[in-house]
């Protein structure tokens, strides 16, 4: 499959809008995840309070990230884990490769890890003659298909059962079946053989607890448990933002993450790993390595708006709720991280000049912000990045007074944007597409955003039917911005 890039979001999105099979596959998302999430959050007394708390914990951690990371490292090392630091993806890959080679391993089993995807670890391993075997069902499917994930929680969401069955026929050699149980049982049988021979397991990390040096990984399938318990060496790749201060903080995040992501009270398994076994006879790896990776993250600390990006717990709720994602799927974003969160972190990770369209790949309807368990203000981030693109301040020094002034302006614009979208806030779910359409017509008139999403409209019959939305006199980005400033007083 040809790899799409973030630079061509508009083309990618248009192609996706014309793909009826993709729409069939994506329909499940809204029907399933959105409803399940709503039911699951109803089982918590004070959902709002929980979100506030989570955000406060993240903010506290990020404001003292150097201290919490050092504490995490100290405690993890005390428990016997080996810590490695990687400035960027290339260094992280090299560390992993060296560790695999130390074991003389030619193959590794991998548990789904967005950090691993971010640094293209599989390709790096292959280049070094090491075979990476993805073991999460969705990841394995897309690995067999030679594709990339299109969702951060359910990587193969863009595929229908029929397409997956065809992949199994071609790559695994089973009879064609539309029985999901047969497909999963086949996966179990084949991957068990790989688990049996694997000496090295590679995983990601959901949370790293500073106070205890524990890493926690959540899952439903059991492949992470197998990856981290059957092998002799466990390597965990962890973004530096994954650290949280206290063990008790897990209570907050374990209530939020599964409910937001899959609509479960708790996923089937959590592995809490604190260092390495003390008794050689015990099950479990002989050595545990944690690769702490920056790869552009520390830079996001340089501004309160971008800093929020690091609070993300990768639940995927913003993808599921996003009317744009629901229509175009994950691949259109041309990035490992798709959807609203992808639209804000991709430009920061790969450089804004390579992903200029992504901050415009949104109607600012606010659905993402509303569902985010850690209350990341994604619309604010999108506007911030748009302002950087418009003003050419991207990459400028954070201490520049001129930039500070512009920042105040962009905030004012944000306020304006809020008031302006307020009248269309009917809520989420089925109405989202309608809100989107209205906002698109209006958003379509704003400076560089113009055209981009508006162009997406014509192929969509359902949307064009709603084109009775109030039209707005065309005004420039500047004018609207100024207007916003005036209202601000």
């Amino acid at each position, binding site marked *: 499959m040809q790899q799409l890039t973030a630079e061509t979001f508009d083309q990618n999105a248009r192609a996706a809008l014309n793909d009826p099979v993709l729409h069939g596959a994506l329909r499940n998302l809204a029907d399933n995840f959105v409803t399940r999430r709503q039911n699951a959050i109803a089982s918590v007394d004070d959902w709002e*309070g929980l979100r*506030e708390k989570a955000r406060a914990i993240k903010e506290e951690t990020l404001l003292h*990230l150097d201290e919490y990371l050092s504490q995490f490292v100290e405690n993890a090392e005390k428990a016997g884990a080996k810590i490695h630091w990687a400035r960027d993806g290339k260094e992280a890959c090299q560390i992993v490769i060296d560790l695999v080679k130390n074991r003389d391993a030619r193959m590794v089993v991998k548990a789904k890890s967005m950090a691993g995807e971010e640094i293209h670890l599989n390709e790096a391993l292959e280049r070094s003659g090491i075979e990476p075997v993805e073991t999460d069902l969705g990841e394995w499917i897309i690995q067999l298909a030679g594709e990339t994930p299109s969702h951060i929680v359910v990587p193969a969401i863009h595929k229908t059962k029929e397409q997956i069955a065809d992949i199994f026929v071609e790559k695994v050699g089973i009879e064609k079946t539309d029985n999901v149980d047969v497909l999963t049982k086949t996966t179990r049988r084949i991957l068990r053989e790989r688990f049996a021979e694997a000496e090295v397991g590679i995983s990601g990390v959901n949370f790293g607890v500073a106070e205890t040096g524990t890493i926690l990984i959540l899952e439903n399938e059991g492949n992470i448990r197998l990856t981290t318990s059957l092998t002799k060496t466990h390597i965990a790749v962890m973004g530096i933002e994954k650290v949280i201060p206290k063990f008790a903080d897990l209570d907050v995040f374990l209530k939020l993450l599964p409910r937001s992501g899959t609509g479960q009270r708790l996923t089937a398994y959590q592995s809490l790993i604190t260092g390495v076994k003390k008794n050689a006879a015990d099950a479990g790896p002989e050595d545990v390595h944690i690769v702490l990776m920056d790869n552009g993250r520390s830079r996001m600390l340089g501004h309160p708006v971008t800093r929020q990006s690091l609070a993300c717990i990768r639940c995927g709720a913003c993808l599921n709720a996003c009317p744009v994602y629901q229509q175009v799927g994950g691949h259109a974003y041309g990035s490992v991280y798709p959807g609203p969160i992808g639209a804000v972190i991709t430009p920061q990770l790969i450089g804004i000049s390579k992903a200029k369209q992504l901050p415009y790949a949104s109607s600012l309807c606010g659905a993402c912000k509303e569902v985010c368990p850690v209350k990341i203000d994604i619309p604010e981030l999108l506007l911030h990045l748009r302002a950087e693109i418009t003003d050419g301040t991207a990459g400028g020094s954070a201490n520049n007074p001129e930039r500070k002034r512009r920042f105040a302006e962009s905030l004012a614009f944000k306020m304006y944007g809020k008031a302006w979208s307020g009248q269309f806030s009917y809520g989420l779910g089925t109405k989202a597409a309608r809100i989107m359409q209205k906002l698109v017509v209006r958003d379509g008139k704003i400076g560089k955003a113009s055209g981009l999403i508006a162009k997406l409209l014509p192929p969509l019959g359902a949307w064009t039917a709603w084109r009775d939305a109030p039209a707005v006199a065309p005004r420039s980005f500047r004018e609207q911005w100024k207007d916003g400033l005036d209202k601000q007083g």
Partner: protein
Amino acid sequence: MTTAREDIIGSIRRHLAASKPFDAVHREHAGGQAEAVVNTALPAENLADVGTPLDNFGSSASLLGIHFEVAANVREAAALVESVINRIGAKDIAISDSELVAESIETIETVEFTRDASTEFLFGSDLGITSAQWAIAETGTLVLEAESENHRLISLVPPVHLCLLEASKIRQTLGEVLTLTQGNLGHAMTFVTGASRTSDIELTLAIGVHGPGELHVIVLADR
């Protein structure tokens, strides 16, 4: 030459410092965005008013499709274990080194049990029997501490996992269990909530993809 650690910590500090002037402006405009007040104790959800830990665990377990039984004592537990073995026709059975497991299978003579099973044995086995150190009623979760019992693989690799649980080990909330376990964290602790599952194909639920496809919990009410 600086190390990667120094560079990363240095970059964190530099960017945090650079953010300072913006932080104030942002707070002002955003109407006091989450001040960093951190107190993680969550309000106790008043589960105790609704039911005993055992009752609540039972209702959570049944929601999750866990095969849940309560035994009055070890003798009853043994009968329940035997009926599970018979129903699934288990022949190769791995057991952990738990005292509770040993007591519960003592009287079962129809099959053999394998202690300290090798990985090879586990891969071909039909059933794994373990106990659990704690359980969480609000979520129907078993808590397995690897340093107390050798159940890390026995609870994972066989297609069916049977767990014997002392009723006194059930706590109402996740928060309570986190507090109880934090003091002496071993190298691995696993929370198990139901059978292995996936929704990766069209979000259709499928059970038993990598871990056990069946989870049985037998609670000993007298312990």
